[in-house]
């Protein structure tokens, strides 16, 4: 293999590039990034960066003395993959020919139809999004967050600490029920009320009002919530449109085997855009977690370099964390399919506890609030049980 193109320059793409070099690949390495920035860490965008506690330099994922001997094409959006020509076509007309490809184009924040072009309406995915939102939050006023998921909850928490008047609107009866289940979703999202943030559940958003700038969020039950700033946090969609017609199989992202291989030889996919086969569950699923974007590229790179000669290990249970209102929330495993969840340590009311999800008596997931030490031990146990 003489040239590898990594398409995507965030954590998954950078991790793949690092793994290529670590595994001895010494050929040409081209890293293509849609954003103009060098790889940066996204989790702080809704937390410390948004709060103004850390700056842009603190977000850099590369260390000062790191040199991957790569050609960086930044601010260059991939527009197509020509499998016959073995080339990535860029939006500006350039082409990058390669023998191996790592697809790491990530996901984009979903938007609400009809909200484009209205000032004061934000989403949060990129550094540029975070800069714009940070500047607006600094003005204070009333913030309405649409979506009570992790991004929405973290923005609400940060804005609350900055002194804004915050309301969170969630369409489902309980926020976070998808990842955490109803019971624990309710407990975790009770943090909003603890800190004087209004949480409105089970009601959809009909639209936004305002001439050039938003002034209210209109709910489907007829209520109107006054707003100076609105954040739309309603999930993300995989950035794979550019692969349509390329021959790479797509199904809610790039469809991949348990080792990251796509339907095309010499092409692997990693990170938020990739839907890997999960041999435990027997299904493909996209895992939109930082930890997956950091760990899985090494498996995919091993696949790319050997194409089938290396057996993939069993994937570790997915792990993610969230920081809200000074509380450390950690979760590992899959809650879907659990038939029970029990608090093993601490008290939910104290916002310091650990809960274990079980299926037929076997632990399948673990959730903790402010219990990092105990959580770490349970996470290791869960990993050992599934490997």
């Amino acid at each position: 293999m003489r040239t590898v193109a990594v398409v995507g320059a965030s954590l998954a793409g950078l991790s793949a590039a690092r793994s290529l070099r670590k595994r001895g690949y010494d050929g040409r390495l081209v890293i293509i990034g849609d954003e103009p920035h060098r790889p940066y860490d996204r989790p702080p965008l809704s937390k410390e960066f948004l709060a103004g506690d850390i700056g842009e330099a603190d977000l850099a994922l590369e260390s000062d003395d790191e040199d991957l001997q790569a050609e960086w094409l930044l601010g260059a959006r991939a527009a197509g993959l020509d499998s016959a020509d073995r080339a990535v076509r860029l939006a500006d007309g350039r082409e990058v020919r390669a023998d191996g490809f790592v697809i790491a184009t990530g996901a984009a924040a979903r938007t609400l139809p009809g909200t484009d072009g209205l000032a004061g309406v934000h989403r949060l995915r990129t550094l540029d999004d975070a800069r714009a939102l940070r500047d607006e939050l600094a003005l204070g006023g009333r913030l309405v967050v649409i979506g009570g998921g992790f991004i929405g909850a973290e923005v609400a928490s940060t804005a609350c600490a900055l002194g804004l008047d915050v309301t969170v609107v969630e369409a489902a009866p309980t926020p976070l029920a998808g990842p955490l289940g109803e019971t624990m979703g309710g407990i975790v999202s009770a943090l909003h009320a603890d800190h004087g943030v209004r949480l409105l559940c089970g009601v959809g958003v009909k639209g936004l009002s305002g001439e050039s700038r938003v002034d209210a969020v209109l709910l489907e039950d007829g209520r109107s919530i006054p707003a100076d700033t609105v954040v739309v946090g309603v999930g993300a969609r995989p950035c794979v449109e550019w692969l349509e017609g390329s021959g790479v199989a797509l199904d809610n992202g790039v469809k991949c085997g348990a080792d990251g291989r796509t339907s095309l030889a010499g092409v692997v996919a990693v990170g938020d855009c990739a839907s890997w086969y999960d041999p435990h569950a027997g299904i493909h699923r996209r895992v939109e977690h930082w930890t997956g974007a950091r760990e899985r590229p090494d498996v995919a790179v091993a696949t790319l370099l050997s194409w089938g000669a290396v057996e993939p290990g069993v994937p570790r249970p997915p792990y993610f964390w969230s920081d809200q209102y000074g509380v450390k929330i950690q979760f590992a495993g899959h809650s879907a399919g659990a038939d029970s969840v029990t608090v093993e340590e601490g008290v939910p009311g104290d916002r310091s506890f650990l809960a274990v999800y079980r299926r037929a008596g076997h632990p399948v997931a673990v959730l903790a609030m402010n219990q990092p030490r105990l959580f770490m031990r349970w996470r290791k146990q869960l990993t050992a049980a599934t490997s």
Partner: protein
Amino acid sequence: MIPACLLVDLPRGEAYRLDIDPPVSVFHTDDGEVFAIDDTCTHQDASLADGWLEGCEVECPLHASKFDLRTGAVDAPPAKRPVRTHEVLIEDGMIYVRPSTEAPDLPPCVASRLAGGPA
């Protein structure tokens, strides 16, 4: 030299946090060696004494960066900078730590707090 704890009170595989400023963690590895490093992860305010000890490495309990107890070096992001290591002495069954004279590598939030800035 700062006395930390008795060696018999620190089983192998466990860590002891010394509440000095900034805090220091003493680790007793499965091989019976004792090391001391800064307790705070260089990425964010996490206690490495709460982490996972394996061989001569401790994994941060929050975001999975691993630090080498012998050198302080970090293996992978999100942490980018090493932790300080400290000299350890065991005398009459007591573990002592001689704090490093180098400047600590603390995460931005903690560093500003220690400098007397806003918490």
